[in-house]
């Protein structure tokens, strides 16, 4: 007997999010932007560094969000793309003396190609199978980076040390602060590009595939092309994030890019709200700060506290930060009426 599944009744892998619900309004965006510009001016260098990491992880979560929230495909393997991006930047800077800002587009393009190629076999997989295949990629990546064959370039197990760039034109700000604003500019550029991508014809094709693959192909969407394209774009953005990460941390090593990172990014997306791009920054805050908070609550039980918090999110706000934002918006609307 062959199992027959009703394609129409099947629960979708990812909940459909309407296009308009994927972004913030203009007013809110400007407020968030202003906060991101002003707040670091009053912080110590270490906290500025943490904010930089917040932006970098937010970029990586955003990339996953385009893949999952946009085109409905899974990935537990984002750490692999992040690693490739980080290594590309590090190798270009340290071995070839390329300017750090120029390494980012290269990292993005290489990762785009890598993701596009990986998307080819992934085409035949969906749901949990795709999760498994990408999971395998993420687990294998640190081992591949340690290979003796690449050691001349990658530095093997020891990794590479990356020099931190100074602020250009003799600007009187610290390296950390300069790097923060540099990251902020890159992030804003990528965020705007992503929003526009999802609003474009390609974005509509992604969403059509997410909501119903068969209907999408019936309407003339090239399913194979757009699925691999989504993988490529997502990997490319993750690669840029990885490159930024390498510059900010000043160090790349295989053990920095384990499956734990991939899982963190995945959790960041779930917490931020699947398919809600601004949620990426909330998700990123969750994966950076919550483990610290958990550690404060109980040293030995930090993993358990983290898990319990995650369960609370799943049960209480299954749509993540998006849901919180929607509720807040409704309450504001009611207040205005009164």
């Amino acid at each position, binding site marked *: 007997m062959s199992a027959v599944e009703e394609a129409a009744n099947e629960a979708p892998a990812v909940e459909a999010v309407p296009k308009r619900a994927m972004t913030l309004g203009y007013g809110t965006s400007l407020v968030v932007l202003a906060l991101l510009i002003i707040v670091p001016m009053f912080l110590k260098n270490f906290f500025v560094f943490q904010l930089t990491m917040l932006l970098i992880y937010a970029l990586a979560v955003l990339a996953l969000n385009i893949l999952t929230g946009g085109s409905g495909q899974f990935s537990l393997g984002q750490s692999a793309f992040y690693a490739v991006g980080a290594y590309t930047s590090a190798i270009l800077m340290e071995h070839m003396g390329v300017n750090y800002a120029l390494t980012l587009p290269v990292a993005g393009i290489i990762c785009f190609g890598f993701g596009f190629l990986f998307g080819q076999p992934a085409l035949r997989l969906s749901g949990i*199978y795709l999760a498994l295949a990408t*999971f395998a990629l993420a687990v294998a990546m640190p081992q591949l980076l340690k290979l003796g064959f690449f050691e001349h370039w990658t530095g093997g197990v020891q990794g590479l040390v990356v020099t931190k760039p100074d602020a250009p034109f003799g600007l009187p700000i610290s390296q950390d602060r300069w790097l923060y604003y540099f990251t902020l500019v890159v992030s804003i550029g990528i965020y705007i590009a992503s929003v526009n991508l999802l609003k474009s014809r390609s974005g509509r094709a992604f969403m059509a595939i997410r909501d119903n693959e068969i209907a999408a192909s019936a309407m003339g969407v090239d399913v194979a092309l757009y699925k691999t394209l989504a993988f490529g774009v997502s990997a490319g953005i993750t690669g840029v994030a990885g490159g930024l990460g390498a510059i900010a941390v000043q160090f790349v090593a295989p053990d920095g890019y384990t499956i734990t990172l991939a899982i963190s990014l995945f959790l960041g997306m779930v917490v931020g709200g699947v398919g809600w791009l601004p949620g990426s920054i909330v998700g990123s805050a969750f994966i950076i700060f919550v483990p610290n908070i958990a550690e404060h609550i109980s040293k030995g039980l930090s993993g358990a506290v983290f898990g319990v918090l995650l369960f609370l999110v799943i049960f209480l706000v299954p749509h993540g930060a998006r849901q919180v934002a929607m509720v807040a918006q409704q309450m504001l609307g009611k207040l205005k009426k009164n």
Partner: protein
Amino acid sequence: MELFTNQVLAGIATGAIYACMALAVVMIYQAIDHLNFAQGEMAMFSTFISWQLMQWGIPYWWAFLATLIISFAGGIIIERLLFKPLAKAPVLTNVAGFIALFAIVNSVAGLIWDFTIKQYPTPFGSSPFLGSQLISTHQAGMIGVTVGLLILLYLFFQFTRIGLAMRAAAAMPESARLVGINTSWMIALGWGMASAIGAIAGILIAPVVFLEPNMMGGVLIYGFAAAVLGGLTSPLGAVVGGFLVGVFENLAGTYIPGVGNELKLPIALALIITVLVLKPAGLFGRPIVKRV
């Protein structure tokens, strides 16, 4: 030739570990259509429970039996409390739930029993089996238990009413409900059984890899590889897949130049991806046909 036979034997011995784990993975996949990423941690926790019971002076086999019962109950409780409410949620939410469970179980085990590596006893002894240096009596016992478990499962699913009901609930939940099967409890039962099988796997593996909270990390990935190779819908496939992965891993490490110990894991993962791409249903699985 002798090298070849030896490597195959050693592969079968490690393959038994993977087979056990794969069996647990398949059990739960059958019941709920999800891969339980926390399966290894649940098995690890069960193993710690049996170790604790033995520390309190309970004989091996009684501890073994008690652990199976506790794990079975534990699996059902986890399903009722945490995953039943998520039954209708998207796959994504479920995966996040499994990861949360993973973190909780791992951390709690570390807190109760700390992270030092512990010896774990074996009832089979560890002398060479039938004069062969490669397979110890423990590994032979492990293979025996795995095969026995598979036969028991086969009998259970083919010849008991509950087994039939569980298969029906997994294959066609709606039709099963119409003929009066409580599908919700069948899922809970699936969790309980998977948890108990995981406990057996953990108890068998512990003497080889030693007992500690992270003992299952690598094993679970090989278990996944085995389950995918054999087909996620077939318990027999899982066991055969386990042995094949074990043998393949050993032979690749011996004969392909450049594949030392450090590349063994990527080999298993390459295997997962190859199988998924070429034959997604696995060797023994049923292909899923979609009605449009």
